[in-house]
């Protein structure tokens, strides 16, 4: 008797807490997972896509580029999102460029330095160049701010600027674009890198090799710090995944992200 009642209670609890009964959209027809840099844009796409196709559930999850790629490889999600290029054994996945994002090297607005060479950025972040003076700034030590290991933004910066050279150990490390921007906005001698779409009036993006960080220069290839935002899948996407990718690449899908500060593919 007692045991029966206990079993009933347990059953009731498990039903009450099971995700399917918590209301909201219960159905998931497709899952995207990966880069937290792409996530907000993917959310936007999914939202508009679901308005067009009522009754369908598209679920967008974060977790980071590497986790997303792994999840896609193992079939946990249909589409993985990556804000860095595929490497090594990840290359057997099919990749689709869905947007591009510029990386801006930013300084305090009061900094007299307007532009630097890419090679100098590399020297600054490797710890070889530690003073603003040779760059035309004040005789002050450079405060170098970087992102933490594992971040897609750091991965892209490492690949595009540093190559095989390490970012030096003494660099201040923060765990989001927002914090990096906040620190640089308050420190006149700091330098760091964030997504181009997130540059605001609190900070100033440096010209690199004479090219200002703007869309025109990215388009004509003079500004070099551009990373692709990728969707990856096992083989060519089919069914719902294909429909979603087609929507993302359509005029409408691309206009959506342009409004949010990203660069369209074409």
């Amino acid at each position, binding site marked *: 008797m007692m045991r029966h009642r206990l079993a009933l209670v347990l059953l009731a609890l498990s039903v009450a807490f099971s995700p399917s009964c918590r209301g909201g959209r219960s159905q998931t027809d497709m899952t995207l997972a990966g880069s937290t840099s792409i996530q907000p844009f993917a959310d936007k796409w999914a939202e508009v896509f679901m308005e067009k196709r009522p009754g369908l559930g598209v679920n967008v999850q974060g977790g980071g580029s*590497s986790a997303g790629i*792994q999840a896609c490889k193992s079939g946990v999600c249909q589409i993985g999102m990556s804000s860095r290029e595929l490497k090594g054994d990840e290359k057997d996945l099919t990749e689709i460029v869905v947007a591009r994002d510029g990386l801006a090297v930013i300084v305090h607005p009061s900094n007299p330095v307007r532009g630097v060479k890419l090679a100098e950025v590399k020297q600054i972040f490797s710890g070889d160049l530690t003073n603003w003076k040779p760059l035309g700034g004040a005789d002050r030590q450079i405060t170098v701010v970087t992102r*933490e*290991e*594992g971040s897609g933004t750091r991965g892209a910066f490492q690949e595009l600027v540093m190559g095989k050279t*390490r970012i030096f*150990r003494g*660099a201040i490390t923060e*765990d989001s674009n927002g914090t990096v921007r906040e620190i640089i906005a308050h420190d006149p001698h700091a330098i760091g890198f964030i997504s181009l779409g997130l540059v605001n009036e609190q900070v100033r993006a440096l010209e690199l090799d004479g090219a200002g960080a703007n869309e025109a220069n990215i388009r004509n290839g003079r500004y070099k710090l551009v990373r692709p935002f990728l969707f990856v899948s096992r083989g060519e996407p089919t069914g719902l995944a294909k429909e979603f990718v087609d929507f993302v690449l359509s005029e409408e899908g691309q206009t959506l992200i342009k409004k949010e500060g990203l660069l369209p593919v074409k």
Partner: protein
Amino acid sequence: MDTTSKGRGKNKLERNDRLVRLALLVVAFSAVSILLVITVFIVGQGTPIMFKYGLKSFLAGANWYPSEQLFGLWPMIVGSLFVTAGALVIGIPFGLACAIVLTEFSSKRVRRFIKPVIELLAGIPSVVYGFMGVIILVPFIRETFGGPGLSVLAVSIILGVMILPTIISISVDSLQAVPPSYREGSIALGATRWQTVKMVLFPAARSGIIASIILGMGRAIGETMATIMVAGNAAEIPRSLLAPVRTLTSNIALEMSYATGEHREALFATGVVLFVIIMVLNTIANATSAKRRKQP
């Protein structure tokens, strides 16, 4: 008839009693089992990678570059010890001075007002301390002393303030626990109040004061949120008080969001190291407070 019904009633009571005892036992041991589960999980996840790359390269390696399979925790171990020492340098003098004033040199009315205020300090969430640090302390350090401002000094000051309530309230309790006859005897022998504090009360309350310091130390070494906000988190042994520093706790919190595979395991290994350090501190604290109880 009468006796059997009474017997049955007693049986039922006994059974209820047993049930209650069992239920309480289960609840009581759930706390212990949670500790067990956490320990087993952290050790299980964290130790394999330590042995894979060798304990020495893990604990004494100077380079933390997980993307290149370099997992040197040495800068973070040193960083944690530095900021803890810094917190104590600031927390101990202020804390003990405050405790002495409260027990020996202030009226009951003042004490009744100040002690709850100090205990309120303990209730402020650490993110608020961190925020104050970023907004007020870091710019102040940057403008007066130079450097990035996010530094060992900033963390030490913030943590020093955060451990004050722990040090003060336990020290006050142990100073008040000194029998009044000690104090009276000392005064009767012609000692001044300060001499009494220095030569009689302090030695008598010593083990309680040490325990308060060790508990404060535990709080400082385990603090994450405030530390991550003002430390700058550079994975390098700081060369000065004005250089940024990364602690073991901030290493975990900073990188856990994107860590996968070995990187994730290395963060668990960071947890193991932290766990061992805190266990040692707790054991010392327990030993000293046990000694205190044995003393007359």
